[in-house]
């Protein structure tokens, strides 16, 4: 019964945290660019405004997939807060991503097609790293369950810092930050428009924003578990990671998709693999 309460509270509270994070993001980004920036609550204004807009669509299918995106992202978040299987969590994120990409494919729009194709390429880039992250957690804890991470007094960061760096790369992709704002981004790029989101408008676009808020919480949650004990250390790690992402967003230019895949594979994947090899070469002692 306790799990139900946690789940319900998460579903309700997460969007508020995510929205605030988005607001802080916009404010800090503005400051980094020497601007004043919008109010912190601006994402919520945007959200409610979008809810109140007229419904228009360019096909019925695209609307179906967007619910899949939302529901699976929430599910992934619930996996995290209920401390379930990390490996399965990655697959659930995968479903959310596929659902989003399929939404982009579901209309005859060149922009959303480009976005969807790039989203798939990004998934090709980040999926292995996330899965290897799960394997790395297994190497440390001997279990894929997130609850075991919380039981382990040593932070993951101590043993998995190469994977942590790789996960930061992934975070840039997932937060749709430069240089990986390829499939869609928070800034209007004229040649891409809004990528996958191009054909979504009004309430449906609001749903995407809502999903992104859940995603923010989920991703920072994944960063959090790198230092789950004591509870505040993870928050600091997550906050630092978040600020770092914003900084990277503002000092880098967008790259091509091919570069993104190559870069993440050659740096992120190699870091992960080296990290895992380290564990397999050394006998694991004293864990669990």
């Amino acid at each position: 019964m306790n799990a139900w309460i946690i789940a319900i509270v998460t579903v309700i509270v997460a969007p508020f945290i995510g929205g605030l994070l988005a607001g802080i993001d916009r404010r800090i980004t503005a400051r980094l660019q020497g601007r004043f920036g919008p109010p912190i609550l601006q994402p919520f204004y945007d959200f409610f405004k979008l809810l109140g807009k007229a419904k228009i669509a360019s096909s019925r299918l695209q609307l179906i997939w967007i619910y899949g995106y939302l529901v699976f992202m929430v599910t992934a978040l619930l996996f995290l807060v209920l401390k379930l299987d990390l490996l399965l969590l990655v697959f659930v994120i995968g479903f959310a991503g596929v659902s989003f990409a399929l939404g982009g494919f579901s209309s005859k729009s060149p922009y959303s097609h480009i976005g969807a194709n790039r989203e798939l390429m990004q998934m090709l880039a980040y999926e292995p790293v996330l899965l290897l992250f799960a394997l790395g957690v297994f190497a440390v804890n001997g279990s894929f369950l997130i609850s075991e991470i919380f039981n382990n007094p040593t932070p993951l960061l101590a043993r998995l810092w190469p994977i942590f760096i790789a996960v930061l790369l992934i975070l840039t992709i997932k937060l749709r930050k430069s240089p990986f704002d390829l499939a869609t981004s928070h800034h209007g790029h004229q040649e891409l428009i809004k990528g996958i989101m191009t054909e979504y408008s009004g309430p449906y676009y609001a749903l995407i924003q809502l999903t992104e808020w859940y995603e923010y919480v989920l991703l920072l949650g994944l960063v959090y578990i790198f230092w789950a004990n004591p509870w505040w250390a993870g928050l600091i790690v997550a906050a630092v990671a978040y600020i770092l992402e914003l900084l990277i967003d503002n000092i880098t230019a967008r790259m091509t998709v091919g570069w993104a895949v190559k870069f993440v594979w050659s740096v992120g994947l190699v870091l992960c693999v080296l990290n895992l090899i380290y564990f397999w070469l050394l006998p694991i002692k004293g864990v669990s």
Partner: protein
Amino acid sequence: MDYNWMMAVAILLPVVAAILVYILRQYHVRGIIVVVTAIALIINSILFLLKGSQTFTPANAQLWDTVVTVLDYLILLFYIYAGISLKNWLVLIFALTQIVPLAYFEFGMGGKAALEAINPTFVVDHLAIVMTLVISIVGSLICIWAIRYMYDHEHHNHIEKSRQPRFFFWLVLFLGAMNGLVFANNLIYLYFFWEVTTLVCFQLIAHDLNKEAVNNAARALWMNSIGGTGLILAMIYLFVKVGPDSLSVAKIISGGIAPALLLLPVALLCFTGMIKAAQMPFQTWLLGAMVAPTPVSALLHSSTMVKAGVYLVVRLAPAFAGTKLGIMVALVGAFTFMAASGLAISQTTGKRVLAYSTIANLGLIIACAGINTPLSISAAILLIIFHAVSKGLMFLCAGTIEHIVWSREIEDMEGLAAKAPMTTAITTIGVLSMFLPPFGMLLAKWLALEASFTIPLAGILFVIASAATIVFWAKWLGRLMQVLPKLGSKIESLSLSYTVPLWVLVLGIFGLGLGVGPVYEGLVKNAVANVIASGQALTTSATGIVVNGVTAVSSNPSFAVGSYPVWPLFVVFAVGILIPFIFVAVKPGELRPVYLCGEQVEGADADEWYSTADAKTKVQLGGFYFKGALSEAALNPWTYTLSIALLVILFGVVFLAIGGAI
């Protein structure tokens, strides 16, 4: 029912039905015979399940021994004939490498003795029951689906003289051969059924009799003949080194034979299985087999015949447990999984994508067998079941789509969701069930990944392959989804012969996915126990599956390593996909054209835009295929080099171990 009758129905009824469809040439008569046979086989397979583990030796064994021997040579003589008439020397050479050692073995070395020494001839254990269920149910459904498909196929191609009786002769015959193969305990019987499936494969690939079909059929023939040769060599080695009674699968895996003696024959048998399962570098025969009519691809080249290969490897898993051979088997499988998934991204033909995906998944199963823990064997067996259902469905969908758009190219399928909503919906479920939660395939893949820790390199290869898998499936699905802003597309009307198997398989996907707990408890657990006795990998609970922690890290058996909430994930799927699918509605007034910088031609469903000088130009979209970086031409040198190197290392390891033992 009497066990004699059950075995007869399983193996001989398809033969009788095959002869009947060949003689009675009417479309409707053929349909009735196929449907009746299918129903009989399905009921029969369920009876096997109810009977449980059994052994069986036919009443007048000597007669059957003679029949098998005679047919063996007939088949091999046919291969020689085929090699000569096609002027394909590879076929001829590998036919000779089979017939000469076989004749020498049976008549020169007294190999006949082995036939009598082995008792029982057939062992129907739970692993075999899993296989016969797959063969009988999925295979029968594909046969039913084929009735209409072949009619349309010939109709569309304006074929004057119907070749359908011949087609169904081989197709139905195959079901019997497959059943025989999975039940066979005696290696000589196993070899016979193995050769029958190779023969059927050759005949069916060559069915259309065009140049490409015949060439590819010949390639399939000689590659599988290498496998057959491997089987014969394994038999001879066992016969000479161990004795006549060792030509029995049950004996090999019982642990009664010294492991050092077993290593080489088991490696050869695994090699044979890998060729049948089209592992790299032998993947080309399966890719070539895609020229065959789609029921063939569905039945032989995805859900059943290629499973014979992995079945053999899984079956032999106890014989290479804890050896370096096991690790190498795992690596070959994992490498194939990765390479085939990567190559699938660049494929533009639907059936080739399916073929690569099949190769990849077979690789995963073999890798699981190589990893050889209770968990990985559970994953392998679940994969055999789920892959057969999902991939069978996918091939049937591909075939149905082929008969709607008359093309196999993925690009030609674009916007299918508007043309054929029902087929698209079924295809979507099929594709999603291949690689995403909550479906069974993902559950099995997840198990495989959790099990991969014992062989870390395999785990890394799995991870890369999973990412590639997502790309090529989603890409394909995306092409189907691409529609114009139009409403009220009519649901297409299809023949019952198409729709019934499709829907049954869809139900199967959901049923098996949801009921994975009972399926595991009632079926897979016993099958796993047939392969690997120690340790229970999974526990099923009310909500899902819990992986027990028998790992290198923790020895505490109550320690949970992973959990998979089956029911909740299905609920999530229903909420996220099915409910929106039913309830999301769009009013005609809400439709807008897509954004084309404001330059599109008026009308919400126009897909044209004004180009230079106001010329109306159609919007043309396409998928990414990475023709440069990921094409076969670019990757194949690497995949061949690495996979051949892996095979060389595999045998090198075996020879080293034997040398060390001696």
